[in-house]
């Protein structure tokens, strides 16, 4: 179990919705969301608790009634939990257009509510586009304004410009603290274990931002925690639990970079504090955050992450339901080849990782250690 788990208890050790429940019990509103393309700054500024809806690995019999096989497994799990009534504390679920599984889930939730077939929370589509054109930018800005109005109606609090700016600044401080953590993790030797780092990313969206930042600052004030092992970057499908990271560590590796939407791509670069706040948020989520729909895509960010992490190898891990990111694989692999970084591709995998990957991971790390990748 990672050291971060204790630091971020009870969010990571007990009830993942603990902090949201406390907020709700005090009369606040909870806004659930999924993915890395929902403006958490806006939710926080409206006085609501932004909660990345937690998945729970295991069977999903309720979701299976309505959702076809090829949905992201974390989305499927959350959908199942909604149908089971386990996420009833949520007042509104905001799903981004930016991820295909999530936008389809939005329509499913709306239909189940419309027909009265199931009691599920109200869903809202944040219709953010991610092609980098002027028309997409203008369209996304209008949708960001609409989301702000919906959140204000939900909470009864229409945040002022200053409050929006303050929320953006708070999340930028979180981005900066996470950047320090990433830097420590990428140091040689690695100064923050891979599993613990992923836990921090997960905790980031289970807690109120001020509370999270306070804990993270304390964690970063402590001396680095050196972690040994062959330096590995994990890429491909997103992970919210460090199961793969633990398996890689058991095999003698150490994850020093997470190139996925719940890892280092979670919050994106700092939001521009010089722009009008809604414009800044719209630009950030349309243009600056990398998602499955970012277009045109680029391999550069991936290559830079691998380089700056000093990775000795990359493990691509794709869920069986992953039909899109796999199309980036060949180009990423070619870039690694050019950089002389070996890679291992684990496709058609379950969520979360299982012991079935151990032999391949061990073999991969052994080849790196022996200098015969």
């Amino acid at each position, binding site marked *: 179990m990672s050291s971060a788990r204790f630091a971020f208890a009870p969010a990571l050790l007990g009830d993942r919705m603990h902090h949201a429940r406390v907020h709700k019990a005090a009369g606040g509103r909870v806004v659930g969301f999924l993915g890395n393309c929902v403006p958490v700054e806006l939710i926080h500024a409206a006085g609501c608790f932004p909660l990345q809806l937690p998945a729970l690995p295991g069977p999903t019999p309720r979701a299976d*009634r*309505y*959702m*076809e*096989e*090829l*949905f992201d497994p974390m989305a499927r799990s959350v959908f199942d939990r909604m149908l089971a009534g386990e996420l009833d504390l949520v007042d509104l679920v905001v799903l981004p*257009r930016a*991820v*295909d*599984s999530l*936008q*389809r889930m*939005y*329509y*499913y939730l*709306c*239909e189940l509510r*419309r027909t009265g*077939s199931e009691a599920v929370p109200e869903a809202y*589509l944040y*219709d953010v*586009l991610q*092609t980098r*054109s002027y*028309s*997409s930018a203008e*369209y996304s800005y*209008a949708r960001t304004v609409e989301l702000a109005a919906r959140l204000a109606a939900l909470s009864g609090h229409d945040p002022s410009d200053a409050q929006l700016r303050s929320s953006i600044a708070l999340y930028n401080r979180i981005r900066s603290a996470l950047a320090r953590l990433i830097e420590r993790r990428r140091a040689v030797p690695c100064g923050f274990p891979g599993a613990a780092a992923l836990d921090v990313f997960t905790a980031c969206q289970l807690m109120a931002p001020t509370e999270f930042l306070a804990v993270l600052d304390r964690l970063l004030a402590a001396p680095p925690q050196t972690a040994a092992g062959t330096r590995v970057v994990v890429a491909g499908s997103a992970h919210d639990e460090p199961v793969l990271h633990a398996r890689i560590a058991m095999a003698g590796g150490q994850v020093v970079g997470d190139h996925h939407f719940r890892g280092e791509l979670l919050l994106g670069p700092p939001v521009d504090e010089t722009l009008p706040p809604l414009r800044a948020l719209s630009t950030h989520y349309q243009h600056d955050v990398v998602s*499955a*729909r970012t*277009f*045109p*895509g680029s391999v550069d960010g991936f290559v830079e992450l691998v380089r700056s992490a000093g990775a000795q190898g990359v493990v*691509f891990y*794709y*869920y*069986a*339901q*992953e*039909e*899109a*990111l*796999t*199309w*980036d*694989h*060949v180009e990423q*692999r070619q870039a690694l080849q050019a950089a002389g970084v070996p890679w291992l*591709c684990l*496709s*058609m995998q379950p969520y979360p990782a299982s012991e079935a990957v151990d032999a391949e991971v061990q073999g991969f790390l052994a080849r790196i250690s022996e200098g015969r990748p």
Partner: protein
Amino acid sequence: MTDAQSRSGARSRKDLACTRDATAYQREFVKTLRTRVVDRGEPFAIAQADTAHEIFHVMDIPVLSNQWWSSYLAAKQLSSRYFAVLDRAGYPASSCRYCSLGLACTLDADPASAPWGGLPRPTVITARLTCDCIQRVFAHWARALGTRFYAFEAPGLAHKDPAWFEHSRTAWREVYGDARIELHVEEMKGLIRLLELETGRSFDDGKLGVLMERINTQEELLDEAALLIGAARPCPVSIADQVPNAMIPQWHRGSDWAVAHARRFRDEVKERVAQAAGVAGQERLRLMWIGAGLWHDPGFYNALEALHGAVFVWSMYLPFAGPQYIRYDLSDPLRALASRICAMNEVLHLPPWMNEWMASEARRSGIDAAVMLVPHSNRLSVSGTKITRHTLEAAGVPVLEIAADMVDDSGWDHGAMVQYVSHFLTSRVIRGGEQPR
């Protein structure tokens, strides 16, 4: 039938004279297209089916639909070869394969085995970003072809009108939303500018208006045929005849030939209704086919007629013509065109549009049971199927899912599938020896 024939696809039986003419026309068209783009090197475009082909038609730029090209490659039995190309290139197995056959053909770079010797460089390839894969597949393809990819966004649709099919012809601004229509108009203008610069050909709003009027005429004829087929007992035309007579004119929508052919098809349908001509000797079950066409085994649609008097009377291609193509009020033809294009994915694959339309169509056509194609390799194509199944079953229409692909015939066994559907009909539709009619 030999064992091998039993496993592989079979040809479908065609009852209408106009079906032969449609396929003959398409064959000739393909020859002409090949001459224009391969031999003469004219500028041309590759476009997904759910893009505004009308723009290319107005500018007299040949357009090749990716879905048509995929079905052409599949019909030439090249699917397995090309999927192997993608495997060898290193794309992991879960990569969506639906739209990627054309890319694989280009990557294969083998003029000896590729139809037309492979496609030459198009001026542009274009698609709407209806899923997370398509931008990647088309970006790779554009790079391999040495051309550019023009992407259309596919925004969400927050206004959900379950009875969209009743309102879409006239109230299309409300049904599809001004913001989404406006965005698509802007993007279409971008494509037009690009084509004008690249080809030197020009776009004319007046020409588009005339084309849109003619398309309305064509779609009204197809819509009338769909209504006749749904109302007639016995079913005068099975989907083996419906699909080519709807789709081939749809690729050429608004052309002289397409309008004339739609009229001819409608007339033949009318004639068969008047003669009480039926598809099966004795029609006992009316079936609905949900999903894309089974391009590698069209004979499957006729296989249950002799066994159970079961006739596939409904497939989306023909009845879709009315609600999704007809657009009244053409004062701003580009906006009307945008409304036709900008929600194709939602109405065909997402609730409440898909399920409510299918349930309404099942009622209209007197459907006894539905067979649903569920290609497990493609999220876009399978999405909405389970909720649609619930809606149909709640309306009293039993549904059977078939896990198969529309272009990839690996694992498909014609004989076994016929038996599978037959068992479903026997156990869930024909109860106690009593058949519905």
